[in-house]
């Protein structure tokens, strides 16, 4: 009897293997005028005043419009969007935008200065992440209508990066009349739930169907102000497929054109015929190991510097991250336009580490074990911890490496109940200030300064750099910021992520935008 059941099992497995090996040739099966993108998860909300997810960003980018637009990676120019031109006053605090005339929202309503004022005030009024970017980070004080097609933005301080903020999705322009019709009270902080799942913008594609957590369907908006010269697709489908294997099979069988792949699965898609893996881009995410400066051991500057010297940067990059990240020279991402070129972070040097620990009075190590937390599921960070642990052991320091879910970690970082935490930061706009503000005293704890670093001199430097109008001076000041952060060593600067895109070779026109993802308008298909 047993032999029979074994036979049956072999038969079943064999059948599956035959099925798998009979994989079809990779070819496009989606319609030629439709772009199908399988994404990893649903955006919680597609309201420009609420969105905090990258999937939401992709939707907003193509459905809504902004006054100014960023170029793809490597192109630092700003392009006119819903504003045809703009002027910046000498004080760097007053910005006048001349709006494009004759533009219509997808529902036919005309676009005017009222919509711009409403959109900015609404995002700020709601007070979530998008509002914070415009209010606390861009320092917008007032947004005023000058006439029907002119808008004036005044900032509290000189704001050289304002135009970069105005190019971001938090500054998406929504139709005031449409929003009010659907019961929006965004100005007083109560956004209409309707706007979380519906959209009405001026972008190249209009949202025609949205089944939450299932798919989005967009159609080309014929009256798009930039016109339809060149090659574009007529329809875009964004499908939410949470399981990576399913997404991969969809791409391999030609039922999807572009899929989301996480860092740990990159090796699966390398070298497959018909599948393009583009790793030329650099992401905006930098990974740091935060050292809580309010704990007994780590409050000592020399100890923190020693830990930085004990960190085997290259080995961790090659073994734990396997080519999915690049070396980091500072706590500022390399992709910003005011990056202080030529700066350097610590090198791996155990002798220096030992010497510094001795100077700090810990020549024999530290008796209490330290714990490094990382977010559950981040396997590369776990490896990072395990590799570093060996180095620390040589210094007489015990490191435990422990995974923790974000909701629980969120509480730990708000009260400082941890000593070491591996967690990244990213800027949502291409300026250095998007990274440095997380090192200010006011951001201690929940605000993103997980080292609880409080240093007035650094605060002043960060503020000064942010408001410096001349790029040259700004870069100089950021160099000083870098030097000071390096000396204080509240973090270990681990690496910056590479960006990768995975799609069928039949898909053309794919460009990488580190500040707002792939744009539907760019892509078209061959064959």
């Amino acid at each position: 009897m047993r032999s029979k059941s074994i036979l049956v099992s072999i038969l079943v497995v064999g059948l599956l293997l035959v099925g798998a090996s009979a994989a079809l040739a990779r070819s496009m099966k989606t319609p030629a005028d439709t772009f199908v993108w399988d994404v990893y998860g649903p955006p919680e909300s597609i309201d420009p005043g609420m969105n905090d997810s990258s999937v939401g960003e992709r939707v907003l980018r193509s459905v809504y419009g902004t006054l100014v637009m960023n170029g793809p990676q490597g192109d630092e120019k700003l392009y006119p969007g819903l504003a045809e031109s703009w002027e910046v006053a000498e004080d760097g605090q007053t910005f006048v935008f001349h709006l494009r005339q004759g533009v219509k929202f997808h529902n036919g309503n005309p676009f005017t200065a009222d919509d711009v004022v409403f959109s900015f005030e609404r995002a700020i009024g709601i007070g979530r992440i998008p509002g914070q970017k415009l209010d606390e980070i861009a320092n917008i004080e007032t947004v005023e209508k000058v006439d029907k097609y002119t808008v004036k933005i005044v900032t509290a301080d000189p704001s050289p990066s304002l135009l970069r903020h105005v190019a971001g999705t938090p500054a998406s322009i929504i139709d005031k009349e449409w929003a009010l019709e659907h019961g929006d009270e965004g100005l007083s902080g109560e956004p209409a739930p309707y706007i979380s799942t519906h959209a009405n913008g001026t972008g190249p594609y209009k949202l025609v169907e949205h089944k939450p957590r299932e798919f989005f369907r967009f159609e080309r908006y014929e009256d798009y102000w930039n016109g339809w010269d060149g090659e574009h697709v007529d329809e875009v489908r964004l499908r939410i497929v949470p399981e990576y294997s399913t997404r991969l099979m969809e791409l391999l069988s030609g039922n999807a054109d572009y899929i989301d792949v996480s860092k740990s699965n990159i090796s699966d898609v390398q070298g497959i015929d018909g599948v393009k893996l583009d790793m030329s881009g650099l992401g905006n995410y930098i990974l740091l190991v935060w050292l809580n400066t309010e704990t007994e051991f780590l409050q000592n500057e020399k100890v923190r510097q020693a830990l930085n010297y004990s960190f085997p940067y290259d080995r961790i990059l090659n073994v734990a991250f396997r080519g999915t990240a690049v070396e980091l020279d500072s706590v500022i991402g390399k992709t910003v336009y005011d990056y202080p070129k030529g700066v350097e972070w610590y090198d791996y040097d155990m002798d220096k580490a030992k010497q510094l620990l001795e100077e700090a009075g810990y020549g024999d190590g530290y008796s209490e074990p330290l714990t490094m937390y990382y977010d559950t599921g981040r396997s590369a960070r776990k490896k990072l911890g395990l590799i570093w642990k060996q180095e620390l052991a040589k210094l007489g320091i015990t490191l435990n490496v422990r995974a923790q879910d974000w909701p629980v970690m969120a509480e730990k970082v708000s009260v400082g109940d941890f000593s070491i935490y591996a967690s990244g930061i990213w800027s949502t706009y291409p300026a250095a200030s998007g990274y440095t503000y997380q090192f200010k005293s006011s951001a201690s704890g929940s605000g993103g300064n997980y080292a609880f670093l409080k240093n007035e001199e650094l605060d002043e430097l960060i503020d000064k750099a942010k408001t410096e109008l001349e790029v040259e001076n700004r870069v100089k000041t950021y160099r000083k910021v870098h030097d000071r952060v390096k000396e204080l060593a509240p973090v270990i600067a681990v690496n910056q992520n590479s960006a990768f895109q995975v799609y069928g070779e039949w898909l053309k026109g794919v460009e990488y935008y580190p500040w707002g993802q792939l744009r539907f308008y760019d892509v078209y298909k061959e064959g």
Partner: protein
Amino acid sequence: MLAYTARRLGEALLVILGVVIFVFVVSHLLPANPAKVWAGSKSSNEQVERIKEEYHLDEPVHKQLYFYLIQLGSGDLGLSPVTNNPVFKDLQRFAPATLELALISVFLGSIGGIYLGVISAVHKDSWVDQLSRVIALAGVSLPLFLLALLAQLLFSFSLNWLPFAGRIGQSVASPPNITGFYLLDSLISGQMGTFVSVLRHLALPSLLLSFSSLVRITRITRSSMVEVLSQDYVLTARSKGLKERMVIYRHALRNAISSSISLLGLTLVYTFGGTVVIEVVFGWPGMGRYAASAIHTLDFPALMGFVLVVSTVVAIVNLIVDLMYGVMDPRIKYA
């Protein structure tokens, strides 16, 4: 019977209330920081404080529970702080997708399981019995997600017979929203193209999901059938010259089935657990995924809404199962 039903309904309500209170308290006692999670990881300290205040997160748990129960009493499930959608509306959207999948699976699993169980018992130790044993062993030992991926590989990728993911093909029109059950809605509105597409999308996930209930019910039915078939009255029935089919399905099965029925309620609970896996693999826009992301984001109103729906469905099914005993076995009286 009526008095019994009323009493059981009252008990079911108490159970639901108990489950709601239990999950509320446990989820709120986590050493976590929901305000920070809702505000987003890049939020500032001021934003986190504001959200804490807005949602009474600083109040003690019993006070928060009091606020929630008052709100629930007025029929309001609340607004999700993460998506800004009313939870009731979300559940209205996602619950039918899961219920459609789960109910069809339990239906397939019970019918198939009872049939297989009977066949195995009748042909005890024959190859049919052995095959069903192999299937049962596979069913309990293979993890559902692995089975699901293998099935996708075979039926969707290699053979290209069935779609990979989703609830409906994208080239067909969605059915009107009448019950939320796509199969039913497309039938009611007479959209045959949509009906076929929905059926094709349901095939793999519902079959896979039915597997665990099929296995359980097969084994239980088989063992009680084997026992019943050896009893004297079956021998009597046979010696009276009744047709074998009559003996098996009218006389024996009726006595053997009560144990399978009592398993039904439990099966539904397991099936709900399985939907989370199936929904992820098949991109099914259901309640399981909704609840899973609610747990990750500590979206309490959404999580409580999910708990309420599931506990209600399970309570109702258990009630129906209890009432069915009487229908199947006339010796049982309700007092």
